[in-house]
């Protein structure tokens, strides 16, 4: 075992349990009848997505978050009253305000917990892990529930082929607790942003910059993304930040049991694996079934990788994501 260099503080953050929730409604590519028949095979070819889950009309982002959170707490054997903080990563909140996390806190019965939202778009899980880790290391809290939940089906234009087929709804959760260095846990995080690329992935209207009432194009109310630019951005920044993370931690890439990458596009993951010279089998993938669940994808994948046994106790794992902002981040975790 190589000598791992965690941050200086002896108090560390341990992954206590995980959970996820995917809505029941499963929509296949062939069900997307609003698009021309000849365009349907391109969906899987371009991204690897075959199915996606879609929230029911009476489910919103907090509902998915609560379902994932309950599963996570049940697995960990923790009562909601023992949770001291709830961080909800989402870029598709219930409302502009208040924070979606507060509804989760209420309905979960976590009355002792503070609750806040963070919006790092698809990087939400990795930014949330780093933020929760900082709060726990600093002694602010001993037990934080990080949830990532997205209902992109409500912010996508159903007729936009460049976005609609590729996304799905879902939520993931991870319960983090204070621990000691010998237990492993979150060893290191790297976070990056580049606001100069903010137009690459965005919902242009609905905020104070462009209120709905001042929209000149109805499509401005919907999510939009420059797919080709995002591909280039991802295949440059993801390998770069993984290398930086591992170099700072003093860990070789061969020591990583599993890479839990944002599930945006299978071709991005194949390319990242090729650039890093890592067998793609060490990258967990579930996007064929769920599509891109934006900020939730990493926590959903982490839960499934643990449940399926791809990650075991003691394994070194890299979680890594990229998305709107632009933002990208990675965490090194010993499970």
């Amino acid at each position, binding site marked *: 075992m190589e000598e791992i260099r965690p941050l200086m503080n002896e108090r560390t953050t341990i992954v206590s349990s995980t959970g996820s929730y995917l809505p029941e409604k499963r929509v296949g590519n062939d069900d997307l009848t609003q698009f021309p028949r000849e365009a349907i095979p391109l969906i899987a070819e371009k991204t690897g997505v075959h199915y996606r889950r879609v929230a029911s009309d009476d489910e919103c982002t907090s509902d998915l978050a609560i379902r994932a959170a309950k599963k996570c707490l049940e697995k960990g054997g923790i009562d909601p009253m023992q949770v001291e903080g709830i961080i909800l990563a989402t870029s598709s909140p219930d409302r502009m305000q208040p924070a979606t996390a507060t509804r989760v806190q209420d309905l979960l019965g976590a009355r002792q917990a503070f609750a806040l939202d963070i919006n790092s778009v698809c990087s939400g899980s990795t930014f949330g892990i780093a933020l929760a880790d900082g709060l726990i290391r600093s002694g602010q809290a001993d037990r934080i529930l990080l949830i990532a939940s997205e209902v992109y089906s409500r912010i996508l234009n159903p007729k936009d082929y460049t976005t609609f087929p590729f996304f799905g709804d879902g939520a993931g959760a991870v319960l983090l607790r204070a621990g000691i260095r010998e237990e492993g846990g979150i060893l290191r995080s790297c976070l990056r942003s580049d606001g100069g690329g903010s137009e690459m992935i965005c919902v*242009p209207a609905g905020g104070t910059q462009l209120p709905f009432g001042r929209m000149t194009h109805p499509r401005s109310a919907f999510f939009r993304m420059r797919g080709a630019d995002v591909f280039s951005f991802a295949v440059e920044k993801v390998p770069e930040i993984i290398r930086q993370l591992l170099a700072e931690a003093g860990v070789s890439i061969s020591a990583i049991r599993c890479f839990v990458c944002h599930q945006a596009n299978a071709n991005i993951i194949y390319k990242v694996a090729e650039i890093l010279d890592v067998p793609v089998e060490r990258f967990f993938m579930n996007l064929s079934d769920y599509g891109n669940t934006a900020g939730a994808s990493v926590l959903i994948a982490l839960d499934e990788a643990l449940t399926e046994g791809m990650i075991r106790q003691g394994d070194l794992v890299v979680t890594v994501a990229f998305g709107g902002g632009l933002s990208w981040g990675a965490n090194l975790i010993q499970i």
Partner: protein
Amino acid sequence: MTDLWNQLKAVLLEEFLEIADGTAVTEKTKLAEIPNWDSMAAVNLQILINEIFQVELPLDLLQDEATFEELIGFIREPETIADAMRRFHERS
């Protein structure tokens, strides 16, 4: 030509916000010159042309080198699409 071009341009302004933001397009513009043009955007243009003009343009004719002038020709005379497709397949 002008009326059809104005209609098509209105569609483009609706679909491609970068054009609305000031990128100039003319009948001679190639599809590849549209900001953020790719095979996904081609599907959106195909859908819009079908909706607005009731003309089903195969994706094969919405290639990078195609110009708006050519698309207008197909919209005005949809019966030429079959010939164009035959030529496309002979070339490829």
